[in-house]
Each structure stands twice: as structure tokens, then as C-alpha cells.
């Protein structure tokens, strides 16, 4: 059961399904305490940024 759960976590991570959750975790850890930090991005706004950034460089090959 534990193993299945871990597999599911990996699949979510691989596909980017949990990208927003990871962003929130990163934000809470690194930025939330800083005085100049605003609220974190919304799910939709984060996803937009994430996707646009992902396709800037060479991502696919022959």
C-alpha cells in the first residue's frame, strides 16, 4: 500500500501534477517570512508562469 502511494507520488511529480503544491511548500519555507513577500501566486497564475517558462529552451530531442 505504501509502495502504491509512493508510485502515485512519483507519477504526479513526473507529470507536473503536483507542481503547485511543491511551489507552495517552497514558498512557505523560503519566502513567507520575508517582509517584502506578498501572498503566493494562485494556482492558475502559477501554472501559467510554470508552463511558459518550461518551453523557453530545448526540451525535446530526436
Amino acid at each position, binding site marked *: 500500500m505504501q509502495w502504491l502511494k509512493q508510485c502515485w507520488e*512519483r*507519477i*504526479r*511529480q*513526473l*507529470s*507536473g*501534477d503536483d*507542481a*503547485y503544491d*511543491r*511551489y507552495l511548500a*517552497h*514558498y512557505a519555507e*523560503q519566502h513567507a517570512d520575508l517582509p517584502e513577500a506578498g501572498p503566493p501566486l494562485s*494556482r*492558475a497564475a*502559477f*501554472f*501559467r*508562469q*510554470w*508552463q*511558459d*517558462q*518550461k*518551453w*523557453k*529552451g*530545448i*526540451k*525535446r*530531442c*530526436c
Partner: protein
Amino acid sequence: MVKRVWGRAGWGGLALLGACALAQVAWARGETLNALWLITAAVCIYLIAYRFYAAWIAARVLTIDATRATPGERLNNGRDFMPTNRWVVFGHHFAAIAGPGPLVGPMLAAQFGYLPGTLWILIGAVLGGAVQDMVTLFFSTRRNGRSLGQMARDEIGAIGGTAALIGTFMIMIILIAVLGLVVVNAMKHSPWGTATVAATIPIAMLVGVYMRYLRPGRVLEASVLGVLLLLASVGLGGWVDHHPVLAPLFDHEGLPLAFCIIGYGFAAAVLPVWLLLAPRDYLSTFMKLGTVLLLAIAILLLRPQIHMPAVTPFIDGTGPIFGGKLFPFVFITIACGAISGFHALIASGTTPKLISSEGDIRMIGYGAMLLESFVAIMAMIAATVLEPGVYFAINSPAGVVGKEALDAVNTISGWGYEVTVAQMQHLADAMGESTLFARTGGAPSLAVGMASIFGSVFGEHLLALWYHFAIMFEAIFILTTLDAGTRVGRFMLQDMLGNLHPKLGATSYTPSVILTSALVVAGWGYFLYIGVIDPNGGVNILWPLFGIANQMLAAIALSVATGILVKSGRLQFAWITALPLTWLLAITSAAAYEKTFSDDIRVGFFAAANDLAHKLSAGLLPPEKAAVAPQLIFNQQLDAWLTLFFVAMLWIVVMDMLLMCWRSVRGKAVLPSSETAYVATRL
């Protein structure tokens, strides 16, 4: 102690098993050979190479240090820099490097028989491709994920950097053209195939809208929806194929299809990524991983017999699919799957930013390439399980074996590979196609091979569905490469033009976006157009050109790596990259020489141009050929100069690297190492 003895016995047994399997593959001269021998030999070689050679390189040559913080840890920004689980990085890296190349290359190279290609895939990957990927990944990780071009500039000099940049741009153009040609040839006069491929576009857009507006960021939900729709589209294509009104709408010659692809490529480069490119990429990644897994399972369950001889007479250079002798052309034809320079662009840049520990570099760099090599072996099996007569009938262009079915069958049977018109018609009917003669480019024969393997395991009556599933599977990630490649080409061009006029370099400035996208599309569109009107099938010209370009890029990557090894005082180990580099130099130079100066009109570009010019002036050409002859002549000459340009570029980089190494060994000043300082990991 006991454990160690058992460990040694295990590896010894594995080595013995691998040697036996390889001997069986190499010396079996019976009627057929079971594909399981190929799989066994490959898996044993991969395991041994990974356990010993790759581990030795990691420990002794690169001295990988798991206590050192990676860029993902030090520069963690929660987005592109982020320490990530090794299996996830492996998945990302493999999905990025494995495209249509390892499927198409072995399919074409099977004209030499199964043995030459298989040996090159195994040896090339273990000693060349996987080493290149791992070493590049390591050096880029130590340099904050710098790209290959930047590393070449930083470590060797401006010449190497510029060559890498131009090389990358050119290879992209040729790659997209040849892949476009593969899709066009798969869709030609196939309403089923064309309708299915066309349906993937609105499906991708729907998934894109879903992920952006309906349920933002729910990638898995959207992907599952998309994959189900894609599977449905294969069935829908079958319905269209039998529809009296709709079928003719999707039944086209090559040229209109080529223009559709060109128009599509332009639209995809200009449209926002979320609408088409990103969702298509999710779908293609899922399809790719799923289908590769399914094929592996099917081959293991079926254990098919290989009907192709080990070596065919075409090693003398008279092969119908592409001209040229075994040496050097088998090494040029199979690039991806053995060694592919393109991988160095992925291994520098994207992947290093995700790695959480240097200890994962062997698994991700070396391991992912071994898996890609295994995909190439499976493609080789899919090609060679076909009866050789059928294989040649599908893959030989009409210009070589004749336009009429009877001519083609007689020519191919004359070579000793029996095939009949009735047999081909029966096969075409079973696959739901009107004809399978002269369906060049590799995709249709791969689809026939895959369909017959899947059909035997999962049900014969579904052959036509399996065939078009395979076509859809190939088309979807070829089109992803096409979209992504055009976009990258556009960014690179904008980057270069930005030096001339700053406004052209702004990636969000619409006139510049349209101008540069149009230029890139025109570049590959030209080669695609010529490839389609060329009576010899176009693959004969474009695939070797792509192979030479890709190997040139690999040689640049290996030069950078060799240079860094020598500079950092590891001269005694520099052979790990210098050895494959020397081999690449030999094959690329030999192939370039043959492609330029050979008298054989099917090999030499200048010879072909002169021959055509001579026939044209003597009035020997039929009117429809005479009309396109001037364009073909110009193209052959252009290709010759392009080949010379590639090989000149390659030698310049290698000379630049050797000069730098010589200065370094003599203790003279060289560019300082750009490796980042040691920081201990806290993960």
C-alpha cells in the same frame, strides 16, 4: 565475504549468458533467429556496462562527489532549479531524449541485415552515446546547468561556442524536415492515418484549454482525458476511412500534405505554448512511455522470429532504401540509439538543474541512454520480423524499384527476397490501407511490424487498429518535435538577430515572432518540399544529412568533454571521450567525403546534380521530371555544400580543442575552468 563470492558468480554468469547470446546473434545462419537472443544479448551488455564501465567512469574519471551540493539545491527557486527524486529526473530526461530517431534509424539501417545495426546500437551506446550523455550531464551539473554552447565558449573558446550554436540551429532545420517527411509519407493516400493525425490537433487544444481554464494545473486529469480521446481518434479514423463523403477529404498526395504540415508548423510556433505545444507534449510523453512498455511486453510474450538475414548483399552500397556502403553509412543512419549529439543539449541545461545528488548522474545520464538504445533494438526487431521481401517492398522508393506493383515485386524478388503482389495487397487490406508499396520513411514499416507483433499477442482481428495506433503514436511525437524544434529555432534566431537589432531579439515582440517563425519554417519547409517532390523518396538525401549533422554535434560535445578532462589534469583518462570522438571523426568525415565526391549518383550529391543536369540538357527526362529537375539540381548542390560546411565546422572545433589541450599539457595559459566552487550538501 559470502555475499561477495555470490556477487562475482552472478556477474560472471551474466557475462557468460551475454556472450552466448551475442555469439548466437552474430553467428546464427539458420532460416530465422529468435528475437529473444537479441534482447538477452542487449540486456546483458547494458547491465555489465552500467555496473562496471559507467561505475568506473563515475568513480575514477569524474570523481563524482555525493557530498557536493548540486545546482538544484544551491539555486533552488521552486521551478527550473529544484532538487528532485532521481526516478522523476530519470523519467524527465528519458522522455526528453527519446524521440522518433531511435525508431526510424534502425528501421532504415535494417537494409544491411539485422547484425550491423544491432552491433552498432549496442557498442555505440555503451562506449559512445551513454558516455557522452553522462559526461556532459556531469560537467554541466558542475557548471550550474550551463548549456553545451556556453560550456564550449567558456572552456575551449569562442570558435567552439559559435560552432555549437550554428550546428544546433542547422541540425534542427534538417531534423524537422526529415521528420516532417516521415509523417507525410505515412499519411499519403491514407484517409485513416490522415484523419487520425488531424484529430490529434483539436484533442491537444482541448486538453490545453482544460489545463489552463477549466481545471488549472490538473495535469494528470487532462492527460488521461487526452489519451482516451486519442485512442478514440484511431477508431474514428477507421470510420472516416469507410465514409463515402469524408474519406476523399482526407485522401491526399504528398505535396498538399507537406504544405499542411508547413502551415501547421508555423501556426504551432506562433500560437501560445499552452494551447498546442504543451498539451501535445503531455500526450506524446504518455503515449511514448506506454507504447514502448507495451512493445517490450509484447516482444517478450511473443518471442518473434527474425526473418531478415544477418547481413544482406546491400552492404556493397547498392541498397534500395538509401545508397552507400556499410561503412560509414550504417553509423550515420543510426545516430539516435547509438550516439546522438542532440542529447548533449538536454544533458546540459535542463536536467542538471533538477538533480538532487551527483550520485544520481550515472543512473540518469548513462542509464537513460541505455534505455533509449533498448528502444532502438526493439525498432530493429520490429523491422526484421517482417519478411525481407515485404520490408523492401514497403521501404523502397518507386524511383528505385518501379512505380507499378508488378515491377517492384519483380525487382525485389530478383534480389532473392520473395514477395508477391497478392501478398502485399492482402497485407494492405489487413492494415486498412490502399497500398503499402513504396511507403518510405520508416513509419509505415514500423507500424506494420508493431501491428503484427501486437496483433499476434493481443488479437489478429484488430490489425488495422494496431497499425493506425502505431501511425498515430509516431505522428504525435514527431509533431511534438516539430513544434518544439520550430520554437527553439525561433528563439535561437531571435537571439542571433537581436545582436543586429535589439527589437528583433525580444521574444514577445509580435512582428519579430512572426518574422523569425516564418524564417525557421521556410528553412525546414524547403527541405521538406524538395524531399516530397524527389522521385527517389527524399529519405535517401535527408536522413544521411541529418545523421551527419547529429554526429557532428556529438563530436562537438565529446570535444568539449575531452578538453575539460585534459585541462583538469585527467589526461590519462581522456580516452573515454577521445575514443568515441575519434570514431565519430572517422565516420563523419568518410560519410561527408562520400556524400560530396562519390561518383555513384545515389550517394554523391555533386554526381547526382551533374547527372541530372546532363539528362536535362540532353532531353532525356519525361516532362514532369524535367519541370522539377532545376530545383532538384540546385538542392543536390546545396546539400553538398551543407555537408562540407558541417564537416569543416567539426574539424575546426576539434582542432581548437586539440590546440587548447596541447597548450594545457605544455603548461601554457588556457581559459580557466568554469567549475563552481565546492559547497557541502545539506540534503
